[in-house]
């Protein structure tokens, strides 16, 4: 469904992606792991067209992500949970969740959009009484849930999760991981997650890709991750300070 072929991206002299090639089959959950600053977020943003790659191709169902025929229709296929939630703090929670349903091609009457938003909030474990609160009134975990509800509100085919458990306590991280897994399975969506939280990887992934130095060092099913024999992946999943990945002390 998503094919990335030798994608490169540099910001000034800093080469972030150096020929990244990755294939995410339809209906599967791919988790990209790697250290901070290795280009995980850039990878997701390139697929969404938020950042234009310098070279290489990104195809989503055969459609060029850099130049889709109808950009709005292309983006309507995606939902994204941002690392910090990226909730619009000038809007109440329900309008955040129903943002896509209140404007544009998917516009619905406000009452119907609110009902859908409340349904999605319930799906992520929040009650209807948070609907009229503003994002600043919510805890970090609740904001993540609202972000998740917004990502799934318009029933997208592809969902991206950017560091879904960052900043959460281990129990809340577990809850969010389980929610993501359940939702992806019940929606039959294609999911791409970037994280360096190994508990997320084990909970969410069908397939794993290890990104280092701008290229995918290893990719395969999550079940094979522990016996991959790849020194980069081994060092990363065991959190060793020594190995091929240089750790700055």
């Amino acid at each position: 469904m998503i094919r990335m072929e030798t994608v490169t991206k540099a910001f000034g002299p800093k080469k972030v992606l150096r020929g990244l090639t990755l294939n995410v089959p339809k209906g599967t959950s791919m988790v990209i792991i790697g250290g901070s600053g290795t280009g995980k977020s850039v990878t997701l943003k390139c697929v969404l067209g938020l950042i234009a790659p310098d070279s290489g191709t990104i195809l989503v169902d055969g459609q060029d992500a850099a130049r889709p025929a109808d950009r709005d229709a292309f983006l309507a296929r995606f939902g994204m949970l941002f690392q910090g939630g990226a909730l619009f703090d000038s809007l109440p929670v329900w309008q955040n969740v129903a943002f896509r349903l209140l404007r544009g091609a998917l516009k619905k009457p406000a009452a119907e959009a609110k009902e859908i938003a409340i349904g999605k909030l319930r799906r992520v474990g929040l009650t209807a009484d948070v609907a009229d609160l503003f994002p600043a009134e919510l805890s970090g975990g609740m904001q993540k849930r609202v972000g998740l509800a917004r990502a799934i509100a318009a029933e997208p085919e592809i969902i991206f999760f950017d560091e879904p458990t960052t900043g959460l306590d281990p129990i809340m991280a577990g809850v969010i991981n389980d929610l993501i897994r359940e939702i992806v399975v019940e929606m039959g969506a294609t999911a791409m997650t970037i994280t360096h939280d190994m508990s997320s990887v084990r909970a969410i992934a069908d397939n794993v890709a290890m990104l280092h130095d701008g290229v995918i060092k290893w990719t395969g099913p999550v079940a094979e991750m522990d016996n991959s024999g790849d020194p980069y992946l081994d060092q990363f999943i065991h959190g060793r300070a020594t190995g091929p990945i240089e750790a700055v002390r």
Partner: protein
Amino acid sequence: MTRLLSPLALLGALAMKLLAAIGRVAIFAVDTVSHLFRPPVYPRELAISLLHIGWLSLPVVGLTAIFTGGALALQIYSGGARFNAEAVVPQIVAIGMVRELGPVLVGLMIAARVTSSIAAEIATMKVTEQIDALVTLSTHPMKYLVVPRVLAAFLTVPLLVAVGDVIGIAGGYTVAVKNLDFNAAAYLKNTVDFLELRDIVSSLVKGAAFGTIAALMGCYYGMRSDRGAQGVGRATKGSVEAAAVLILAANFVLTGVFFSI
């Protein structure tokens, strides 16, 4: 030779930087105008911007204008006394407020109040990925964030200038009548008789231009903000500096256009 040329090279580099910045702002302005005429439109965002930029700026505009009008009357009276021209207070307050001080002071107050708030809000949205989130939700940030703010400023700042002009003249009138023993009816008659349509049109046109500059600079700096709190701070500071300087420069140009003989 190289040492001799280095100040020139520095000057050249600065000139190139300045031209590049002017180019970026011009492209941003053209982009904004092009989005103004293409759907979708966001009437709710426009209504909110009209309220924030127009209605909620009224108190600060009113206070600025009334004190300025009052001070202007006192200055003209004491200055005019040096050559027995105290009687021109109504005319000079009217012309001073309508042609110059009204639009410029309202423009600068809008730069302080609105430009800074737009830049800080959009910059914060940028650093917290809210702008990226807008894009992923099929909403163009130029249409959703920039167009409503610029349009609202273009529409409301001329009205604020008109209000400022009237309140400024009222400030001068109050000081002149209460403190300087001017006749109330004669003061008003002199004010109305002296003002020309051209004065009022120039005031409103300046208001529209200054409002557009103020909102455009807030949006431009907000959208180009660097990461972190420092980035937001730099964007806010830069937007107010740029808006204030451009408003004063535009005032010079527009005054030349309207009143050059």
